[in-house]
């Protein structure tokens, strides 16, 4: 995902060969469980009318990734669509739609590996959808269905989905010992905090169009709250876990290396124990990277604490107004 603006859409997902067996197993496990749950929820809650709809929307997301606009120096911004699908179809249907999109990208176009598909599904279909749902719902509660809530929520949801998915990808690479955390995490965070702005702006533009033509699709309805609480909490936990783990990992890459070593994924049978170089080979990089990442992490933490606070305020207010009303 690191260089997607330069080589879109070829190098957007993690290819095969970059992830260790343990990381693959964990990501596949979580992704499969979430997809099965999404499958059951969609089958139970959605009317059959939505089945062909999901297939066609997946096709639209696929095709929509061709939509781009020039930014600067030959790079371009384009749409990934997890947040938009979540807003228009609800979280569980969006999980399935993104599963199909990411799966087809791997199987048909070799965009992302086949074994690595578990990790790419985890980043895009699970984390991308859950986290954007958490953010969007929090803003919705705050705006109480006002029009601005749809757009602000859409922007933040899109930005966070990209940013957090990128952090997850960087950590997966770091845990696989295929990319050092102190470089991969800040680099991914920095690049994707910019890509996320493009995603956010396109998402807002799309929502503005949909709001003008089919307001019923974006207005808060009961259907979108189906199974909401679980996704909301899961999204929040994922976001907080990644926001906390990323700076830790990038500050202590040796810790990660140690974990990898313990798991036996580093050449543990090496005959002569090499001297572990006492300091970083690139002096000063740890401080620099901590500095670059700090802004992004602080941003995410603020967004989420505001979201949590707002949700609590809102809940208290509804309960108090409900009791005073009755």
């Amino acid at each position, binding site marked *: 995902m690191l*260089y997607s603006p*330069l*080589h879109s859409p*070829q*190098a957007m997902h993690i*290819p*095969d060969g*970059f*992830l*260790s*067996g343990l990381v693959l197993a964990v990501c596949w496990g979580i992704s499969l469980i979430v997809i099965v749950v999404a*499958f059951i929820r969609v*089958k139970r809650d959605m009317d*059959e009318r939505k*089945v*062909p*709809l*999901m*297939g*066609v*929307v997946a*096709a*639209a997301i*696929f*095709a*929509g990734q061709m*939509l*781009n*606009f*020039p930014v*600067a120096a030959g790079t371009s911004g384009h*749409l990934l669509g997890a947040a*938009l699908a979540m807003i228009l179809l609800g979280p569980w249907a969006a999980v399935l739609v993104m599963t*199909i*999109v990411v*799966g*087809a990208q791997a*199987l*048909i176009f*070799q965009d992302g*590996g*086949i*074994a690595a598909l578990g990790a790419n599904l985890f980043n895009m279909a699970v984390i991308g959808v859950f986290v954007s749902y958490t953010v969007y719902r929090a803003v919705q509660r705050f705006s109480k269905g006002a029009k601005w809530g749809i757009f602000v929520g859409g922007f933040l949801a899109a930005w966070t989905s990209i940013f957090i998915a990128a952090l997850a990808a960087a950590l997966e690479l770091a845990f696989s010992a*295929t990319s*050092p955390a102190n470089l991969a995490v800040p680099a991914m965070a920095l690049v994707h905090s910019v890509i996320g702005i493009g995603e956010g*702006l396109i*998402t*807002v533009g*799309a929502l*503005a*169009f949909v709001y003008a033509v*089919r307001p019923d699709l974006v207005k808060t309805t009961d259907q979108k709250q189906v199974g909401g609480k679980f996704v909301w909490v899961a999204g929040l936990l994922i976001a907080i876990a990644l926001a906390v783990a990323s700076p830790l990992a990038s500050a202590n*890459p040796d810790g990660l290396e140690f974990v990898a070593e313990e798991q036996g994924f580093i050449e*543990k049978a090496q005959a002569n124990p*090499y*001297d572990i*170089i006492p300091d970083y*080979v*690139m*002096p000063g990089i740890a401080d620099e990277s901590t500095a670059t990442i700090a802004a992004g992490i602080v941003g995410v933490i603020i967004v989420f604490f505001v979201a949590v606070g707002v949700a609590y305020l809102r809940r208290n207010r509804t309960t108090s107004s409900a009791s005073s009303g009755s």
Partner: protein
Amino acid sequence: MHLHFLDPYRHRQSLIHAFDPRVKFVFTLAFVLTMALLPFGAWPVYVLMLTLSLSITVLSELGVKYVLKRSLLAIPFVLAAVPLLFTVPGPALLTIPIGSLSLTITTTGLERLLSIMFKSWVSVQVAIVFAAATPFPDMLLAMRAVKIPRLLVSLFGLMWRYMFVMVDEVIRLMRARAARSGAIEGAKSGGSIAWRAKVTGGMAGNLFIRSIDRGERIYDAMAARGYDGEVRAFPLPPISSTSWIVLLGGLGLLVVLLLFALLFWA
């Protein structure tokens, strides 16, 4: 329709094309998984895996050049692993002085980077041959055979069918934007980046509305033909004994290679 640049399928009269898609699917998954589980630096096994993937490529008659050219598309991602050269502790190979700092490339780091590149490269070759030698409807058959739920498989099928229609919609949208984007020589044009993003967003919204409308029409058409929410399909044809033998032989070979690598290099 713009099938030509989307559909990776290339028709040939080859052994690989004629094979049972279920065998190809399972073997591709197993091959890629084996490649992922191989330890770093197991070079003899890597070379054997490359031999295997090249043999499959040659048998598929797709042209070695075509497959190798396409297999380079994962290369940009290697940049993510390049810092390993300097960060993996090990004996120093080369020191590059940059001003007051110096970067030291370690042999361990170099070996790991090359391992990752090689694993990625060989894996993607097999994936390319599978996609180029298996028509998409056959892939759907293979997905059903490995017990992926029918609804999900039918969603894959719907996506594939309408992807071309949606790509045509996108091409029309882009053509319309280009037609309205006249530029005067020397004058600044195109608006701010935020404005461009908003315009593109409007196009994306347009695309979504069209897809949702189309999805609803498709449902009506399906319902008129008796669709009741249940996805029905013909039973899968039996797998021939030759296919079984090839599949089991292939999987056995992969297991042996993996065990060999884990025994000597892990």
